[in-house]
C-alpha cells in the first residue's frame, strides 16, 4: 500500500474525516464492546467501517470510520462497558496500528527450550524439545523425546503446540 493511500483522507461525503480513533471501555470487555458496537453500527447505518480490539490495548477499542463526534457520542450512549470517546484532536493513522493487524509469525510464540506437542504430520502426537527456530521460514528444529537416538527434525512452526515453557530462558 502506498503512503499516499494511508495519509490522504478518503472522501466521506461529509465534512468529517474518515480516520481511526479510540473509545474507552471497561477492562476485559473490549471484545464485547467491539461486537456490540459492530452490530449497532450496522443497524443504525453509522459511518463506521471497522472496530478493532487488540489484546494488548487494554481498556480501549479502536474505531475506523467517520469521526463525527456528535454522531459517535450518540451511537455509544447507554452502551454497556463503554466509557466514552477519547478526546483530543489527534487522529490515529493506519500506520500507527499496523502492528496490531499484521499477523505475527507463527513461530513468534515459541522459544528454544520449550516443550511442544506435534499436532499434525508424520510425528503427530509426539512430544519434543525445541532446539532451534527459523522465524523467516517459520520452521523449528526439535528433538523428539520418544526417539531412541535424538535426531533433530525440522518441521513447520504451525504443526506444534507449546505444552511447557522453558522457565530458564
Amino acid at each position, binding site marked *: *500500500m502506498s503512503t499516499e*493511500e*494511508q495519509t490522504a483522507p*478518503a472522501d466521506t461525503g461529509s465534512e468529517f474525516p*474518515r480516520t*481511526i480513533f479510540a473509545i474507552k471501555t471497561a477492562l476485559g470487555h*473490549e*471484545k464485547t464492546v*467491539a*461486537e456490540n*458496537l*459492530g452490530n449497532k*453500527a*450496522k443497524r443504525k447505518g453509522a459511518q*463506521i*467501517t*471497522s*472496530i*478493532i*480490539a*487488540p*489484546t*494488548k490495548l487494554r481498556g480501549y477499542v479502536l474505531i*475506523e*470510520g467517520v469521526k463525527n463526534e456528535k454522531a459517535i457520542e450518540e451511537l455509544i450512549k447507554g452502551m454497556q462497558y463503554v466509557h466514552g470517546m477519547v478526546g483530543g484532536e489527534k487522529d490515529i493513522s*493506519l500506520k500507527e*496500528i*499496523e502492528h*496490531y*493487524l499484521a*499477523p*505475527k509469525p*507463527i513461530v513468534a*510464540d515459541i522459544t528454544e527450550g520449550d516443550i511442544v506437542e506435534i499436532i499434525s504430520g508424520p510425528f503427530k502426537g509426539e512430544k519434543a524439545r525445541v532446539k532451534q527456530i527459523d522465524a523467516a521460514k517459520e520452521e523449528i528444529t526439535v528433538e523428539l523425546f520418544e526417539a531412541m537416538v535424538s535426531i533433530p527434525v525440522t518441521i513447520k512452526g*504451525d504443526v506444534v*503446540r507449546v505444552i511447557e515453557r522453558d522457565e530458564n530462558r
Partner: protein
Amino acid sequence: MLACKKCMFLTEQEKCPLCGGELSKEWQGMVVIVDHESSEVAKHMGIRANGKFALKVR
C-alpha cells in the same frame, strides 16, 4: 467462538463458512469489519467480507 486458521474468521460453526478452513480455539484480539469495501483495515489485512475476525490465530 473459534477462529479460522486460514482467514481468521470467527465462527460458532464446525468449519469456516468463508473458506472451509480448519478452526482453532487459540486466538487473540478481534476486528469487527462492518464495511469491508471502504475499510482500510480490511484492505490491509486482506479481508474481503464483513464479520468478526481474530487478529492472531495459532
